């Protein structure tokens, strides 16, 4: 695998995760628990979409086949997507949406804080720009995890249920393959083993404050590194891609 091929796949991994999570959160638009929170979550969704846009645009340049960020977003199939499985999980109730967001925000925060040191200038610049937004996202989602964990019996039990459903998708975020080893040698990618303990500490700290426990079942679902997905991604893509696929020349 050449550096260029590895970087292209690495960028898809990052860009796809931001985009699919943005798409999931956007489903809440107009359906939030109350107006202010509806706006907060859709603002976060827009930030993620902006990050995805810059990353996929760069991916297109790296690939060098003339594909734009739109081509990459709207004209790839499920088995060509590399987003983390957790990003595509269904919204469920607000507890599940918030917990999914918290796991992803905590990952993004420590991941992009490291990636600003990348020798790839573009990747370092995108990370530096994103980290300000992510810092806010993490503050938002962790305060909600605490609030719901400590809220009522019902909010607490909904958070426990969300934890049971989502915990199994947190392991693969730290999985590394050839893409990583090629890019780590070049100083472009970062070692996810260094991100993991920081993520775990943050998660433990917030869950403790929220009086929530990590599930005893430690089975971890994997697949996204090989573009293998849960049943949800196909539905997301068919909705997201239907317009550009049926009207390929449509413009705003």
């Amino acid at each position, binding site marked *: 695998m050449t550096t260029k091929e590895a970087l292209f796949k690495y960028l898809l991994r990052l860009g796809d995760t931001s985009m699919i999570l943005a798409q999931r959160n956007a489903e809440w638009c107009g359906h939030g628990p*109350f*107006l*202010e929170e509806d706006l*907060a979550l859709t*603002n976060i969704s827009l930030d993620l979409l902006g990050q995805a846009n810059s990353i996929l645009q760069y991916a297109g340049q790296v690939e060098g086949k003339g594909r734009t960020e739109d081509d990459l977003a709207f004209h790839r199939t499920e088995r060509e997507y590399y987003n983390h499985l957790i990003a595509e999980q269904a919204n469920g109730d607000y507890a599940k949406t918030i917990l999914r967001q918290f796991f992803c925000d905590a990952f993004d925060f420590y991941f992009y804080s490291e990636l600003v040191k990348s020798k790839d200038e573009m990747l370092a610049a995108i990370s530096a720009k994103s980290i300000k937004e992510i810092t806010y996202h993490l503050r938002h989602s962790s*305060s909600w995890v605490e*609030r719901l964990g400590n809220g009522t019996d019902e909010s607490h039990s909904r958070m426990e249920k969300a934890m049971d459903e989502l915990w199994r998708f947190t392991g693969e975020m730290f999985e590394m393959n050839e893409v990583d080893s090629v890019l780590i040698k070049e100083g472009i990618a970062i070692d996810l083993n260094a991100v993991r303990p920081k993520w775990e500490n943050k998660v433990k700290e917030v869950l403790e404050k929220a009086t929530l426990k990590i599930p005893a079942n430690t089975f971890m679902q994997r697949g996204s590194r090989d573009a293998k997905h849960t049943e949800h991604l196909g539905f997301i893509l068919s909705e997201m891609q239907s317009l550009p696929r049926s009207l390929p020349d449509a413009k705003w």
Partner: protein
Amino acid sequence: MANTKDSQGPLWEVFVQKKSGQPFVHCGNLHAFDKEMALQNARDLYTRRNEGTALWVVPSDAIVSSSPEDIGPFFEPANDKVFRHPTFYKIPDAIKHM
């Protein structure tokens, strides 16, 4: 003043400071269930387009307001007392934000 009966939480008033040293100006209100949520919601609703660099949020029911009937006794006596207005002084150029 504050409507706490609905399910969206109590009301908070939002004040934005454009730049350090300038006064905080009231810009609107919002719903939130606690201080941190009020601050975050204020950021999302009122400062995402470079409107300011600092925020205050205050529970609406902590604000004591004059009522329309107070207009006469509170404000009108000032009208005919021109000496109460500092219009006879020149403000030095070095003083800003007056």
